[in-house]
């Protein structure tokens, strides 16, 4: 980025630093995981694994629908998904570039939505909808409604959603155990979803989330002071302070030098809007995000930290450079009036193809055809300028 923009104009806030999942020059895996009811899987004799293909997720959902191990009757939702995460699960897990452009093996730029992998994902999406595996009105669900059906209401067999390390305690303990009274470690399995080719599919998440930008008119003294704050927060002590609070009040070192929490998370979370320190994790001074410290945070159960690390690590192993590619900075930074016009709302449009009825392949072909007057000029530009 520095080379491309000819200077450092912003400071990216790193997701991972001390706990890098992949090599620094390799792509960063995303947080999305499949939460599934381990107890129900055992009841229907479905294997508990850390990775499943999309078709296996559908198979699991069908088995649960048939057997209803939770005795929920017509309240049971085999796969709880709002449209956005449904598209990620069925299409995104199978088609790396389903919502953008990419450089194909033949060296030309193509539109991922028009790829056969996208169609294959859409077919599975349609199968899940038509088989009644999704909520009959899943398209009315808002973000997080689907997660609640799984971890708060306990009426869903599985849910594909955000699962960063820092969020797992909330899902497992606060929501699931708190609302359903079940042991989450016995009742939940978290897994990575793979494409039908058996590989993990994802575009590079890029190892930063948000940036810090200073005004060019900032006073020298203030800038120096901010640099000191950022330097401290990037250090070991600063990272602990920004993520755990005050030493000897919220945490301490034990005789062996390990961090021990003094804070009772069960009464009130330490950070977040309802927490003891509402701005924790979001303040300007945080240059290394809590994704990194979550692996070392003693407030998070060791089992969850190990599980999360295992999932991230596996994603980097069960992939190829094509299914989990590095970011293409030329494409990432490409801009033109034509390019700006083709930023579609893929979640809505792909979901509509599934719910409109009829043959999904024909729906998809018609949709592709309707978009080509907008897409073709962009492909022409990309192939002319970046090749």
């Amino acid at each position, binding site marked *: 980025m520095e080379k491309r923009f000819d200077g450092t104009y912003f400071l990216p806030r790193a997701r991972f630093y001390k706990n890098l999942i992949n090599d620094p020059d390799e792509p960063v895996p995303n947080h999305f995981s499949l939460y599934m009811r381990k107890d129900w899987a055992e009841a229907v004799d479905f294997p508990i694994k850390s990775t499943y293909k999309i078709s296996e997720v559908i198979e699991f959902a069908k088995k649960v629908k048939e057997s209803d191990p939770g005795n929920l009757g017509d309240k049971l939702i085999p796969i709880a998904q709002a449209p956005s995460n449904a598209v990620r699960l069925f299409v995104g897990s199978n088609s790396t570039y389903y919502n953008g452009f990419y450089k194909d093996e033949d060296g030309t730029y193509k539109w991922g939505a028009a790829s056969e992998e996208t169609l294959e994902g859409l077919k599975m999406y349609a199968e899940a909808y038509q088989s009644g595996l999704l909520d009959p*009105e899943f*398209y*009315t669900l808002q973000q997080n409604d689907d997660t609640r059906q799984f971890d708060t209401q306990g009426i869903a067999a599985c849910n594909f959603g955000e699962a960063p390390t820092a969020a797992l305690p909330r899902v497992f303990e606060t929501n699931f155990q708190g609302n359903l009274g079940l042991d989450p470690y016995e009742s939940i399995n978290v897994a990575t979803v793979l494409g039908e080719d058996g590989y993990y599919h994802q575009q590079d998440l890029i190892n930063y989330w948000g940036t810090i930008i200073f005004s060019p008119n900032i006073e020298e003294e203030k800038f120096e002071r901010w640099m000191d704050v950022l330097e401290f927060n990037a250090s070991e002590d600063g990272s602990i302070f920004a993520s755990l609070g005050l030493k000897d009040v919220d945490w301490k070192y034990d005789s062996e030098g390990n961090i021990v929490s003094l804070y009772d998370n069960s009464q009130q979370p330490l950070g977040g809007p309802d927490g003891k320190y509402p701005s924790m994790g979001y303040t300007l001074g945080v240059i290394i995000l809590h994704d990194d410290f979550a692996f070392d945070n003693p407030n998070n159960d060791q089992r969850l930290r190990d599980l999360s690390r295992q999932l991230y690590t596996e994603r980097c192993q069960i992939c190829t450079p094509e299914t989990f590619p590095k970011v293409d900075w030329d494409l990432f930074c490409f801009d033109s009036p034509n390019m700006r016009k083709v930023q579609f709302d893929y979640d809505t449009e792909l979901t509509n193809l599934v719910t409109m009825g009829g043959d999904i392949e024909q729906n998809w072909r018609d949709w592709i055809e309707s978009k080509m007057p907008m897409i073709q000029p962009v492909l022409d530009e990309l192939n002319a300028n970046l090749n």
Partner: protein
Amino acid sequence: MARSLERIKIFFKDLWKWRSNCIMILPGVIWYIVFAYIPIYGLTLAFKSYRANLGIFRSPWVGLENYVYVFRDPAFLESIWRTLFINFGRILFQFPYPIILALLLNELRINRFKKAIQTVLTFPHFLSWVIVASIMINVLGSRGLVNSIIKILGGESINFLGSEKLFVPLLYITENWKSGGWTMIIYLAAIAGIDTEQYESAEIDGATRLQTMWHITLPGIKNTIVVLFILAVGNIMVQGFDQVFNLSNPATARVAEILDMYIYRITFKTAADFSFSTAVSLFRSVINFILLLSADRITKWLGSEGLFS
């Protein structure tokens, strides 16, 4: 010069004479200047390539380039067709509803009952579309009230919320439920202004209530109907965004993409291109203006008074 000064003097004299009225209309005038006239300059963005760092004034002119992109997108033309289809349907199915309500309510003779009915019909107007959409999900959802009754009666559940075929009728029904009672008040006010002697004469002449309604009440509110009709036609391209936005979902997205939804999508749901959005908005305003003038001319041609001279 002396004549001009005389005119200015008369103007300020009139202004002072009518000062109470002027003070009353002042907030409205200020509102129009601030929110309707000053922002008109922003429409120049339709012919510019907007750059945030340059602002509206210094962004470069690109002529009609934005319209080349607008007409290249099939979704744009589709959204115009959908807007016209849905909103001409509103004229057919929504516009007469408050007139009918007012005529019927006017025939009620028990005053307390009449007031109660009026309150019940008017109340939904004060609910926002966000609330109405939530009510619809609870009433029309697969586990909602209507489907529960259908199932109890042995029927099959109906997919009200995700059906493309039912979406447009649902718009008309909910809009009539929500706003019919409120618009009815305007017609009731017009009915109240009809000379009661006409009704007394009709009664003496032995006219039935239906004949009275048809020959006295309806002609008595004709001018109000015409004015509201012209305004309704003039709003055809901008009507119903709140409603469509809240009642639609990904399953109905295709049939719900009216022009305002299209503008919303290209402005806020994808990478924002304000020049492109403004170009579409300007196009919409031009169509609206043409429709407004056409409605005015047609009503005049049919023998009624229009809005414009």
